[in-house]
């Protein structure tokens, strides 16, 4: 008898999908009504996920594991979806008649990401990953401004398909050499064969799909165009929740390989260094805030990889914590971006001019989020980096930590340029104060509080994540 309650959160999001399917078929689209429904459903979804955080079970013939690890990620993902819906009140970037479909795809993608967090069989992993990607492909091209949206969508799709093909090839090689598809079986066999070239190649290629999601070099080409061309809300979703999902599966997959292979670790070290450096250097010259966010995502993917390549409990804990910090900080940036952007499209950094007068609260939230992304205490971004560095140091990657810190200093430069725009630049023509609703004010204040409080007092969350990560190793 299957434990359906353990599958509760996914079922809930599936029901939400049906609601939006019906709404999309109604004759008169009503953006207000659809927004309210999405807000309500995502808020309840968060409650459902939190309620199910301690449920456990092995479903669908052992291909689907509900454990503390997956449930923590489901809570984070549901939170991510809720946050994204919060900035959908003005969905200017998407045509009015498509709003129901927009939510439909968003919830589908979220559900798939939750399934990704629980997938423990090569096939489930692949199916969940594709499901989440395909709904994102659609979301990216929902931009009203057709040309840029189409170009972004096409690039995203092509890179995604290549990554997924590479991954499938890797999975096939892996199966060919190990003859197992359950992660729990692979983990038992793999220590004996980890040094075989075929196994390493298989592992590296299978990482392709995950690295694509995380926007790690060399699968990062799509990020700048997608962040710029997609509707801002979708870019925010890709920058926050989608990264969390990528970390979820990457950590589970790496934990499966058992941490025996030096070659694998070295390959990841190289990828981490290149990602950080490429992302940070390219971000310096950006004039467009969306593109800057994209390059900063690429750089942050490098930091996350440092945690993951440690392949021990401390490393995985740090990567998960880093994922949460990224989600909060990136979302805060996009919250400001969405509010400042006049036409629902991408935002030039110069357009932030005078923000400190137009909305002091948003300016402060933006500054904190940017300093957090740069890894400056007392924000959650610093704590994430500290955890990553401790884990790396424990595994003897001292030089890597130094390189990462140098990158931090480089990144500070362009984050400061954005802060400068918000606090120093004066707009060329007089801009009215931003109309910020009380709800958004509360949201911004809550984000600021969360970034600081979790940053200096991470104890409880850290203990939970640590417990989850220990399950894997």
């Amino acid at each position, binding site marked *: 008898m299957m434990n359906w309650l353990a599958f509760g959160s996914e079922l809930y999001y599936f029901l939400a999908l049906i609601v939006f399917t019906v709404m999309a078929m109604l004759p008169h689209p009503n953006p207000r009504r659809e927004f309210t429904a999405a807000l309500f459903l995502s808020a309840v979804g968060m409650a459902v996920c939190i309620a199910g955080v301690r449920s456990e079970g092995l479903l669908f013939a052992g291909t689907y594991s509900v454990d503390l690890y997956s449930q923590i990620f489901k809570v984070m993902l549901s939170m991510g979806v809720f946050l994204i819906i919060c900035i959908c009140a003005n969905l200017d970037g998407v045509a009015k008649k498509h709003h129901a479909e927009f939510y439909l795809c968003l919830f589908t993608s979220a559900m798939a990401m939750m399934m990704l967090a629980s997938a423990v069989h090569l096939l489930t992993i692949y199916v969940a990953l594709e499901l989440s990607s395909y709904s994102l492909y659609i979301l990216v091209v929902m931009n009203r401004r057709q040309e840029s949206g189409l170009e972004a969508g096409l690039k995203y799709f092509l890179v995604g398909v290549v990554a997924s093909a590479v991954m499938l090839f890797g999975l096939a090689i892996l199966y060919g050499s190990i003859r197992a598809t359950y992660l729990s079986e692979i983990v038992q066999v793999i220590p004996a064969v980890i040094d075989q070239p075929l196994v390493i190649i298989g592992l590296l290629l299978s990482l392709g799909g995950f690295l694509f999601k995380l926007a790690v070099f060399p699968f990062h080409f799509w990020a700048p165009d997608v962040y710029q061309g997609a509707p801002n809300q979708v870019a925010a979703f890709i920058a926050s929740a989608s990264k969390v999902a990528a970390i979820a599966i990457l950590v589970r997959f790496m934990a499966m390989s058992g941490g025996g292979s030096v070659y694998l670790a070295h390959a990841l070290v190289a990828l981490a260094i290149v990602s950080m450096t490429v992302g940070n250097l390219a971000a310096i010259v950006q004039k467009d805030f969306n593109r800057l966010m994209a390059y900063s995502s690429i750089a942050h993917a490098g930091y996350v990889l440092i945690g993951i390549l440690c392949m021990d409990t401390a490393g995985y804990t740090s990567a998960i914590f880093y994922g949460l910090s990224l989600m909060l900080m990136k979302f805060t940036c996009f919250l400001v971006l969405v509010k400042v952007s006049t036409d629902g499209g991408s935002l030039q950094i110069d357009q932030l001019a005078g923000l400190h007068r137009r909305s002091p609260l948003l300016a402060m939230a933006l500054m904190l989020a940017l300093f957090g992304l740069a890894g400056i205490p007392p924000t959650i971004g610093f704590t994430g980096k500290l955890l990553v560095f401790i884990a790396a*140091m424990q595994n003897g990657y*001292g030089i890597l*930590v130094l390189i990462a810190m140098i990158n*931090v200093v480089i990144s500070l*430069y362009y984050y400061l340029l954005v802060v400068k725009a918000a606090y*120093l630049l004066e707009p060329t023509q007089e801009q009215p104060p931003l109309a910020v609703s009380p709800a958004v004010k509360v949201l911004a204040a809550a984000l600021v509080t969360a970034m600081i409080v979790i940053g200096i007092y991470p104890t409880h969350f850290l*203990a939970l994540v640590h417990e989850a990560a220990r399950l894997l190793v």
Partner: protein
Amino acid sequence: MPTSHADFPYLSAILLSCIIGLFVILFIPAERRKAIKWVSAVFSGITLVLSTYLFFAYDKNIGGLQFVEVLSWVPSLGITYFNAADGFNLPMLLLTGVVFFTAVLTMWELENRVKEFFALIFLLVAGVFGLFMSFDLFFIFIWYDVSLFPMYLLIAVWGSTRKEYGAMKLTLYLLAGSALILPAIVYLSVSSGLNTFNLITLMQPGTFTPYQQKVAFLLFYIGFGILAGVWPFHTWSPVGHVAAPTAVSMIHAGVLMKIGAFGVLRIGMFLCPEGWQYWAQLMAFLAAVGIVYGALVGLKQTDLKYVIGYSSVSHMGIVGLGLATVTVDGLNGAVFQMFAHGVMTALLFSSVGYIYDRTHTRMLGELGGLSRIMPVASGFFILAALAGIGVPFLASFWGELLVFISSFRVYPFFGTMAVVALVISALFMLRVIQKAFYGPRNDKFENLSDVTLGLGIPRIILAAVIVIFGIFPSIMFDMIDTASIPFVGGLP
């Protein structure tokens, strides 16, 4: 080491008054400038009162750590909230209190974006206080960065002369310093195998191998040294000081640069005594070069703020030289010099700020005969300048004297170089005074008013501190002795 716990969390109260002050300011409407200034004055006054109280309530006969507050923070990582007072940090806390309070009063005439200015100042000072009182590496690093990042906005928004360039250069330099400090902290914490960031636990002899100490000390020395204005990492400092508004220059030269030297002392020397002794030669060399370089480059400057900026590089070199001697006298002199230089530079910048606000120039060639137009304002500057060149019975004299005596013994060559440079800079300072305050007066400034009593209060406080500690240096030396004698005595 004797430790006594606090019956009342005085140290946290200092931090809290900064943080509460910050929040109160955030909730006052921006137009109510007077209210914001009064709130700032009250809360900064509280920190001054508390730090003065602690300075005198500390029991020098017992020594060790007093007013200790310990709270487990993140047990899984070994992070504790651990504040304490000892003979090294009490002078620094007092210095911070004095400079903070007087800096707030100095900015009484500010009209532009008052709310944000004072909010950022409070944030900055919270970081400074926190760093001085903390004994946990995690918190020390957090406070270190908290005190740095408001600087960018403070200089870029309210500064003058190439402010954006100065702000960006300063921030990137100092953050590059923290890029060395954080790996060193993590390296030590991890390689100790104790899973703790507690400074006192980590400083047990034998925790680190000599090799680890050498590596980590170098990272700490350069990382914190950037902030302390150690040559050749000082180039941000004159530019930053010139660009910054008066109060920020005061806090920055007066207190923030001390954080650098204090970090070398508190973390570098405490945790890596063998690394300290290994690199002491290098420290002495760089310090001596800094003293000479600062003095000589100062000779060429025509902008009063640049003059002070380069003299800071020179004076911080004296602190570095004192630390490099590895003797009780050297340490005492260095810590005393940190305190004296902090008060003295604050007074210098404060006087220059006043003069600049009136005359709108800081160029030596354009000023002249000011002592007849503004006798009081000029008097403050001259007093501070005299303290800077080490006139007896003003505070800096004792610090410089001790450092020079001990450095003659340990590094005769560097000591001589430093004294010669100081004599040159003394001559030069007298020339600056002569040019700006005596000589033919500039008719343009005929109608300018002198310092009123209200605006005089902060300068009077600073001048009084310089004189009091110049006449009674033993108050300070007895305090520092309680920390420096056991520390140097316990060295391997």
